[in-house]
């Protein structure tokens, strides 16, 4: 049984003319111990989906199942257990920590409140352990600090330690490393990966950064969202190396690469329109059709394409292009370069 399952989950905001469907019939499952990365641009519904998974927002239609149980139908106790099992880490560590509390208070209070430690001393010892898990060492140096005395990276580590107080099985990380400096980002990601391995924590990792998603979920899965719908998902390695949906392809081609040679050789995918449609006035059919270079008029602008499985793994919502691979990097005439070799080595595992 999957740990998390979303069945045709939708979420609308507003009324009448101002009604927007931020998330539209999204379905996916996350197995215990897995990582799912939800990627997409701003406004695609990835954070709204994350909030619904974490139980912070109710779907307007569809069900969120936890351990096979619909969270909307849980009794108080079961819902409480679910809320402990699922923790969320927000993007902005400057806003998500109480500025008037010390690290000690932020960690020991939930430990005592939820009876995860016995007495003040037990809580203290447990807090030190948690700080060490998130690499805030020596932990004693951090116990008396207030958030303003910590760097962005250190604050985010405190957020993680605080989430760990209730021994979660599942963590929703919403752009958790986006505000942190480049040099520190990797160590934060590696720390989160360690939680996955050592404590078997399952992750929903939400990000706009495809390269980060690829790094964090290399052994996991990626779902690409566009205007409230999943347009493609599958094992990360398949989605990144052999994207099929034109939107996924356009995103991967557009990402600037920290490698001048690669930047010169990366293919450009010209979109028919640079502007993203408004959620208030979505185009009929596939919502990507006004921008899609492969649009088939009379087909793509009529019906919403189903998210159908493909033999290489995962699902693609594009009957026109789902069986066609493209090269993202142009071949160089003068011999192979590192990145090309990697692409040709890749064998889809079905």
């Amino acid at each position, binding site marked *: 049984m999957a740990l998390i399952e979303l069945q045709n989950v939708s979420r609308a905001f507003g009324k009448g003319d101002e009604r927007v469907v931020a998330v539209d019939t999204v379905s996916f499952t996350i197995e215990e111990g897995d990582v799912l990365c939800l990627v997409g*641009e*701003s406004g695609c519904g990835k954070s709204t989906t994350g909030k619904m998974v974490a139980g912070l927002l109710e779907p307007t239609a569809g069900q969120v199942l936890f351990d096979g149980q619909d969270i909307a139908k849980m009794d108080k106790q079961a819902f409480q257990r679910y809320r402990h099992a699922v923790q969320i880490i927000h993007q902005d560590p400057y806003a998500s920590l109480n500025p008037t509390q010390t690290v000690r208070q932020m960690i020991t209070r939930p430990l005592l409140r939820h009876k995860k430690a016995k007495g003040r001393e037990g809580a203290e010892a447990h807090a030190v352990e948690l700080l060490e898990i998130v690499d805030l060492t020596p932990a004693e140096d951090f116990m008396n600090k207030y958030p303003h005395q910590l*760097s962005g*990276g*250190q604050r985010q580590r405190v957020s993680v330690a605080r989430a760990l107080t209730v021994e979660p099985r599942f963590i929703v990380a919403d752009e958790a490393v986006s505000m942190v*400096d*480049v*040099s*520190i*980002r*990797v*160590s934060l*990601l*590696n720390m989160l990966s360690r939680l996955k391995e050592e404590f078997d924590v399952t992750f929903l990792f939400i990000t*706009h950064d*495809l*390269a*980060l998603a*690829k*790094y964090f979920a*290399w052994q996991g899965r990626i779902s690409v969202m566009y205007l409230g719908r999943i347009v493609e998902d599958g094992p990360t390695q398949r989605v*990144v*190396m052999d994207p099929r949906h034109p939107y996924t392809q*356009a*995103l*991967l081609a*557009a*990402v*600037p*690469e*920290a*490698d*001048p*040679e*690669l*930047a010169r050789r*990366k293919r*450009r995918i010209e*979109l028919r329109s*640079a*502007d*993203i449609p408004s959620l208030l006035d979505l185009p009929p059919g596939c919502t990507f059709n006004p921008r899609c270079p492969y649009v088939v008029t009379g087909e793509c602008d009529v019906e919403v394409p189903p998210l159908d499985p493909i033999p290489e793994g995962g699902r693609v919502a594009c009957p026109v292009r789902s069986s066609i691979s493209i090269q*993202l*990097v142009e071949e160089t005439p003068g011999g192979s*370069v*590192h*990145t090309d070799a*990697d*692409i040709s*080595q*890749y064998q889809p595992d079905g």
Partner: protein
Amino acid sequence: MSNESQLIWKHEAGSGTPLSLRNVHIIYGARKGDVQAVRGVDLDLRAGESIALIGESGSGKTTLGLGIVRLLVKSADISQGEIIYRRNGTEVNVLDLDKKELREFRWKECSMVFQSALNAFNPVLRVWDQMRDTAQSHGWKDKKAIRQRSLDLLGFVQLDAERVIDAYPHELSGGMRQRVLIALSLLLDPQVLILDEPTTALDILTQRTIIDLLRKLKEEQHFTMIFISHDLAIAAELADRIATMYAGRIVELGSADDIFYRPRHPYTLGLIRAVPKVVGGFQELFSIPGSPPDLIDLPSGCKFHPRCPYATDKCKTEEPDLVTVGREHEAACWHWREVEEELQTNPLHSV
């Protein structure tokens, strides 16, 4: 794009060095002490080239950019150094310019595109009003000519010019505003363009249109540009040369290829090894231990030594200057040869 051909750029792909920074120091006064944001930067900007200043928050790159156009906050002081600007054989020290001369210098000689495009506009003025104000305050009288040039420039940045020129800033998306700001910065045909995080906070597909636009400015119009970015990918896409900044100093300077494939400063190498690529197979990443230094209470010696895997006792006491490590390639590190050796064993690319 029919508008493009009508644009007249007065500046030619010149030669020489429009901008030279000499030993520039910038300090912010704070209660706890002086924040040494920029500590002795020397840099020559050649005509037609684009330089990227890269580094993490607090490295001094934005302060340096603001210092060049003298838009620093009051608590900041350019305590030492010279900023030499040259055009048509004459040169001035930007630090000697009075208020009126500075107004002339900004926009006309050197314009700056800011990170948050929404804050750069007056919210109650239409795009046209902003462009007209800017042109008129620099002595343009012919309204018709201003309007035509504005329309041409808005077309050049791939906007629907007729619609956008009469829009208010809030009616435009982030990417559109950023493009309007770039058009505005080109209005008076400046010689030097400074762009501070020009694509940060934009969505990927929008970011791509801005990058391609800036590339066009660079390759077709030969603008002289300084990019300020924490994002190495922007530098890889757009820069001819790259300067790595750390704790207020340039610690490495070289061509984009040298910096990305043959870095000699451990900090540059650390940054490159920390950034993932989206194309290709799995790539191991490494973080740089520790955190950026406290600019009020800087470490002794090389400011990077507490985080550096190559650090020795010498690094703790003596701060290295930039030395030549290759053709037009400089690095400020006592141990750059060890970095070179390390890269021979573990090369960054097979390019």
